[in-house]
């Protein structure tokens, strides 16, 4: 990530396609792996790990949505509903058949992929805002179905309790266990997406985003790839839903309502459409910023106001600051945090010898 790249001469296609363009990238990844797999979980308090866990869940979901919106250019406001499909599939399997979590995870993802592909059918005829409304309808229909069909929701409360995942004889129930559990899937999701976008499928997605008629002319089956994009994105969403269910110990339909879909859209727009790193930045930003603002307010709010006023002020100011910062960041860099990060990098690359 942070490295110099002069004098890099690639002589084969394999080298050009490599995940690591330079040897130093390998080292960066190794350092990050040690940091996230050893240093952070072993040194930080459980509270910080619980925040990290929320970030991990958001990262997987945001990556999935970015495949669809950022790479394929198909807007979707149904991401929360696809998550709920995965969650309820897994919860039902776990409670009715007692199947282990890897099976439920896969089944949840596949079921979400199937439903996602069906909801994606209108994308073959409509684009942009019209597609957004079609997927919004998908969101509402799925919400309604889960809410009313007791076979799926397990009763009028529409919530199914799920036992914690087990690894052999170990029950994963502390935040630290969950941290590792989720981190494995985050790594899989990141590597999966990175590989996907440099494969034939990923390039087809990008071609469709840039100009779908041109893509069709050069021989890309639009029908197949658009639905595939919906399916893959929904698979990620379904997996996110299953992981969320295991993280909370319950599948509840109110955790996957329209607001969640919007939050995920916000993440990828702030992070940067069509970039893997951007999805990660966006997920981190949207999850951590409110918490950071609250800490700052708690530290300084008491200087100016009475404690009762501060309590009322913190949430409201937090919302305002959150909105203002999002607008600010998007004005500074409409292409998102990923672009901002690249700018910072290229600034420091020649620093202090600018120009």
């Amino acid at each position, binding site marked *: 990530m942070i490295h110099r790249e002069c004098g890099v001469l690639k002589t084969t296609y394999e080298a050009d396609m490599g995940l690591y363009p330079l040897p130093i990238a390998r080292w960066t990844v190794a350092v990050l792996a040690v940091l996230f797999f050893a240093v952070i979980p072993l040194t930080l*308090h*459980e*509270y910080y790990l*619980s*925040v990290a866990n*929320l970030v991990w*869940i*958001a990262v997987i979901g945001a990556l999935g949505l970015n495949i669809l919106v950022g790479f394929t250019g198909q807007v979707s406001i149904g991401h929360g509903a696809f998550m709920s499909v995965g969650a309820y599939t897994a919860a039902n399997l776990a409670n009715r058949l007692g199947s282990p979590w890897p099976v439920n995870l896969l089944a949840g993802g596949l079921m979400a992929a199937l439903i996602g592909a069906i909801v994606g059918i209108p994308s073959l005829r409509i684009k942009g805002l019209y597609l957004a409304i079609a997927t919004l309808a998908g969101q509402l229909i799925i919400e309604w179905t889960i*809410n009313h069909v007791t076979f799926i929701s397990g*009763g*009028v*409360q*529409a*919530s199914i*309790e799920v036992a*914690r995942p087990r690894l052999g004889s170990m029950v994963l*129930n502390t*935040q630290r266990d969950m941290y590792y559990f989720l981190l494995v899937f985050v790594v899989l999701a990141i590597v999966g997406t990175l590989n996907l976008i440099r494969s034939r499928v990923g390039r087809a997605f990008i071609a469709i985003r840039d100009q779908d008629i041109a893509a069709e002319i050069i021989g890309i089956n639009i029908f197949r790839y658009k639905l595939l994009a919906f399916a893959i994105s929904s698979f990620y969403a379904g997996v996110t839903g299953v992981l969320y269910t295991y993280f*909370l*110990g*319950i599948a*509840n*339909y*109110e*955790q996957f309502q329209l*607001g969640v879909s919007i939050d995920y859209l916000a993440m990828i727009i702030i992070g940067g459409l069509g970039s893997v790193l951007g999805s990660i930045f966006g997920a981190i930003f949207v*999850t951590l910023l*409110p*918490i*950071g603002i*609250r*800490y*700052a307010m*708690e*530290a300084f709010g008491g200087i100016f106001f009475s404690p*009762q006023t501060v*309590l*009322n002020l*913190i*949430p*409201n100011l*937090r*919302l305002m600051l959150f909105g203002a910062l999002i607008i600010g960041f998007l004005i*500074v860099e409409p292409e998102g945090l990923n672009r*901002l990060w690249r*700018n*910072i990098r290229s*600034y420091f690359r020649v620093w202090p010898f*600018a120009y």
Partner: protein
Amino acid sequence: MHRFLAIVTALLVGVASLATATSSPAQSKGEIVIGVQCDRTGPTQIVGTVLCPGLHDYVALVNSKGGVEGHPIKAIEIDHEYKVPPAVESYERHKKDGAVTMAIYGTPQIYALTSKLTEDRIPGTSPGFGSAAAADGQRYPFIFPIAATYWSQAAAATDFAKKQLGGSLKGKKIAYLFYDNPAGREPIDLLGDIAEQEGFQLKTFAVPPPGVEMGAQVLDIAQRFKADFVISHLFGGAPSVSIKELKRIGYPMRKVIGLVWASAEANIEGAGGFGVAEGYYAMQFAGVGTDYPVLNEIREMYKKQGKPAPKEMASTVFYNRGVLIGALHVEAIRNAVKAKPDGKITGVDVKNGFEKISNFTLGGLVPPLKITPQDHEGGGLVQIWQVKGGKFEKSTEWFAAYQNVVAKHIKESGAKK
């Protein structure tokens, strides 16, 4: 541009280091922490902005009188906007800050935190939220509804209708107007059972979210079904709409009862004021009005500090509920400290403290609950108040009804697992 980027980077680093610097709270010795979750900015803000100050005022009152057996109480509040991930985060932060009991706010939030509370052995309260099945203390040892659940509320409403309609419901028609979400649908099966037992005709009318359009349902209730009584179980802005619509087509307000989230001053004012809703019955799980000794003490406390009483006190329904939640937590802590005089209490001690609460009424603001290891609801007691002459007037004392039917449903939902 480059200079700007440098500034942004510097700022980010600054904020990050600041956040880590302020994250170690200093705890004075003997302090007992209550974790409070609230929604002051989300969809239920009309409740949260009044309810949570009530809780804090009660805690401040206890502290001004020397705390619980000498231990000061600290209520740490975190706002979660009625979203689940921030609720998880604030739960973990409360746990880190040493909270021995948690006031959880919101139905999805209490669902999401149930397994964590049970694993960490910290009691969490969910008055007016969550599933009615949580009243079963054996199945959910660390979840405390501490107020009448929707099942108990629906049962009490039916009983009240029976008394209003002359002591028998045989052949009568009761309409159940509900918000179409899990909480709204929860009492339907139970109402069906009571209908069979009492021989009345029950018809349900769903209001789809967001609940601002119910002209058709109301017309149906009043003119086609010709209901003898209406039980309305709505949330947010929907109760105001229901009152307005029922009034518009001339349905008598004294034949309508709203369950606990359709019963506050805000709901009545939203419908066009107390004049419009004259006659409307409202169900309460905490006392209404300003005439309670504890509220006088809070006003007294503010006066001593040279401040006017907070404006939230005027909205007595939600404010008093906040006082009730705070009071029950403090009472559970008091029981726990009494059992363990060294003051080093854990979540389990407070859980046992909750289960010892009995006949703690705070001068009538709190119902005479009797919380036991089996019954975390405390008896399912409610009061009914009527809109009369510009204010709420008490119609009944604390009562509960059809407890056998409610118990049967709790048992069945436990057996399903």
